[in-house]
C-alpha cells in the first residue's frame, strides 16, 4: 500500500513514514491512539509487567527464605535448570501427556463434531450435553476421576477386576491422568471442529457423492482440507493447554510415580521451595516452549491463515 496523505486509522499496515499529515488526519490518528490507550495500558499492566518481572527475577538469586542473599547472577538459574536431570524428565513427561492426550482428543473430538453436525433433532440440547465435562471445574473433575480410580472406593478397578492399585505405578497413573484430560477436553476440541465443519459447503460434498466418492473419500479429500484451519487452531489451543497441565496431576499424585509435569515442577519450585529465581527461570523456559509450539503451528502448518483465526 502506498501511503497517501490521508490514511484512515486502523487500515494501514505500512510502516509509519514521515509524511505530511493534514490536521484532520493527525487528529484522527491521535484519537485512534487515545481510543486504544486504555486497552494498551491494561495489557501492559497484566501481561507485559509480570512477564518482564519474571524475566528479571530469573536472572537473580531470589529466595524468599534467604532475603539477604538476593543478588544478580546472570544466567546461572538457567544453567541450573537445564543441567538438572529432573528438568529433562519433566519435559519428557509433559511431552508424553500432551502428545497422547491431544491425539486421542482429536480423534474423539472429530467423531463427536461429526455426530453433532449431522444430528437432526434436539441439536442444541445434544451440544449442551456434550459440553458438560468441559463445564465442570477442572479440580472437581480431577477429584472425581481420582476417586473413580482408587482401589478401595473406585468403580474402575472394581469393573476391571484389578487387585493392585492402578495409581501406585507410573503406567496406571499416566492412563488415569490422560483419560481425565481426554474426558474433560474432548468437548472443547469438538466444539472448535464443529465450527470448522460448518465451513464445508454441502454442494461440494453432494457433487463428490454424485461423482461416486465414498464417505471416507469425501471426509479425507473434501471435509478435512477445507477444515484445515479449524483443525490447526483446535490442535494449537489444546496443545498449548495440555503442555501446561497442572491441576489433574496435582490432584492425582502431586507428580509422584514419574508424572511430574513442567507446571508441577514450576509450582513446587516457586510456592513450596519459595525459590523465586529458579522458579522464574522454569516459568520463562515453559513460556519459551509454548512460544515454540505456537510458532511451529502457525508458521509450519499455517494455522494462522484461512477463514478461521485470520491473523497476518
Amino acid at each position, binding site marked *: 500500500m502506498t501511503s497517501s496523505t490521508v490514511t484512515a486509522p486502523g487500515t494501514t499496515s505500512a510502516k509509519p513514514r514521515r509524511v505530511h499529515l493534514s490536521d484532520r488526519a493527525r487528529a484522527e490518528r491521535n484519537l485512534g491512539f487515545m481510543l486504544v490507550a486504555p486497552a494498551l495500558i491494561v495489557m501492559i499492566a497484566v501481561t507485559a509487567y509480570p512477564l518482564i518481572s519474571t524475566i528479571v527475577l530469573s536472572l537473580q538469586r531470589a529466595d524468599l527464605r534467604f532475603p539477604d542473599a538476593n543478588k544478580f547472577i546472570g544466567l546461572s538459574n538457567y544453567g541450573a535448570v537445564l543441567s538438572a536431570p529432573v528438568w529433562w524428565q519433566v519435559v519428557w513427561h509433559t511431552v508424553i501427556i500432551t502428545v497422547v492426550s491431544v491425539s486421542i482428543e482429536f480423534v474423539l473430538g472429530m467423531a463427536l463434531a461429526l455426530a453433532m453436525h449431522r444430528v437432526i433433532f434436539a441439536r442444541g440440547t445434544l451440544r449442551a450435553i456434550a459440553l458438560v465435562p468441559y463445564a465442570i471445574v477442572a479440580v472437581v473433575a480431577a477429584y472425581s476421576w481420582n476417586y473413580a480410580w482408587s482401589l478401595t472406593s473406585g468403580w474402575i478397578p472394581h469393573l476391571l477386576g484389578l487387585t493392585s*492399585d492402578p495409581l501406585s505405578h507410573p503406567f496406571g497413573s499416566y492412563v488415569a491422568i490422560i483419560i481425565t484430560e481426554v474426558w474433560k477436553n474432548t468437548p472443547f476440541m469438538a466444539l472448535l471442529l464443529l465450527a470448522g465443519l460448518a465451513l464445508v459447503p454441502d454442494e461440494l460434498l453432494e457433487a463428490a457423492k454424485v461423482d461416486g466418492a465414498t464417505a471416507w473419500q469425501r471426509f479425507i479429500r473434501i471435509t478435512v482440507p477445507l477444515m484445515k484451519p479449524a483443525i490447526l487452531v483446535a490442535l494449537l489451543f489444546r496443545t498449548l493447554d495440555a503442555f501446561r497441565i497442572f491441576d489433574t496431576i496435582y490432584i492425582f499424585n502431586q507428580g509422584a510415580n514419574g508424572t511430574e509435569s513442567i507446571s508441577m515442577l514450576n509450582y513446587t519450585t516457586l510456592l513450596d521451595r519459595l525459590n523465586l529465581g529458579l522458579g522464574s527461570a522454569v516459568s520463562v523456559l515453559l513460556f519459551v516452549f509454548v512460544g515454540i509450539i505456537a510458532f511451529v503451528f502457525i508458521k509450519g502448518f499455517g494455522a494462522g491463515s484461512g477463514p478461521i483465526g485470520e491473523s497476518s
Partner: protein
Amino acid sequence: MTLNWYVFPEPSGSFATAAANCSKASNGAYQIKINFLSNSSDQQRISLVRRLAAGDSSIDILAMDVDWTAEFADAKWIRPWTGANAAAVSQGVLPGPLKTATWDGKLYAAPLNSNTELLWYRKDLVPNPPKTWNEMIDDAIKLAKEGKPHYIEEQGAKYEGLTVWFNSLVNSAGGQILSPTNKILVDHTSARAAAIMRRLADSPAADPGLNVAMEGTSETAWEHGDVAFQINYPFVWSAAKADSPSVFKQMGYAPFPSVIPGTAPRVSIGGYNLGVSTHSPHPQLAFQAVRCLVQPVNQRRAAIKGGLAPVLGSIYDEPSFAKAYPFHALIKAQLEHYGLRPQTPAYADVSLAIQDTLSPTSSIDPSTVVSTLRNEIKNALSSKALL
C-alpha cells in the same frame, strides 16, 4: 486491639473457646480473632509464607508445623522469645516438643500441641504386638499365608508423611539425616531404614495402595478391615470408634516398632508451635496472648475434646486425660525419647529431596540410597538446584 491468629482448622472448637476465654481474661487489652487456614500443612505454609514474605501486618500469631521453625526464624518472619515470656511457655514442656520450637539456641515459638505415631493392631489377629519392624513384617506375612487380613498401613505417598516415616526409621536406627549445624549425616542407618521400607513394599504385607497412602487413606483402609497393623497418629482411635465399631472392638495399641531389637524407637515428632510475626504491630500483646493460649486449661480442653496431644508433661498424669487418652503413657514416652526431623531453614527442600529419593518405596535401592540421598540433600541445602 484485635490480634489475628492464623491456625489450622481445629474442628472441636477448643481453639475458639481458648481464644474467647483469653480475650475475656485480658480485660479488653486484646481480642483474639481466629483465621482458619487450609487442612493440609503444606497449604498452610504456602498461605502463611506468602503473606509473611510480603510483610503483611495483619498476622499477629501463627500456628507453625514443628518443622518450619528454622525456616521462619532465619527468614526473620517470627520473633524470638526471651526473658519471662520464654520461661513461661517452656516451663514443664516435654523435651521433644520444646526442641522443635528451638533453633540456633533460641526459642522461636511456644509449643501448642504435639503428635507421635503409634502402632495400632488387631487384637483378634495379633495376640502379641510386634516389637520391631522386621517382626511386624514377618507377622503380616504369616497372616497372609493363613489367608487372614494382613496389610500393614504406612504412609508411602510422595509427601511429608514419607519423610516422617523415613526419619523415624533413621532416628530409631541410631542415626540422623542432618546435624544441628546442617552437616549431612546420612550413613548406614539410612541404608538400614531404606531397606526396611523396601522390604515392606516388596512383601505381601504392603497394602497395594502403599505408594499413594496418606494418614487419611491408611485410616480408611483400617476401618475397612483388611488391615492387621497400622502406623498412624492417635486420631485413628476416635475415628475408628465413630465409624467402625466392629474394628474398634479389636483395636489394640503399642509403641512404634523398633529398628534395633531391644532399643526404644525414636519417632518423628509432629504438632504445632505458636509464633509471633515480625510484622505484627502489637508484638507484646501477641506474646501475652500466646502465653494464655498454651495454658494447661486450654491444652487439656484441646486434648480431651479435640484429641490433640498436649506438650505439658503434667497433663499426661491427670485422670480425666488418661481416660480420654488410654494410650497416654505411650505418647508421653515417645515425646520424651523422641526423633526429630532435620532442623534447617531449607527444610522444604530437604524433605522434597528425601521424597524424590525414596518414592516409590518399591524402587528403593538400599545399596545406592546413601550416596543418592547425600547428593540430593547437598543440592537441597544449597537451595540453588532444581529438585
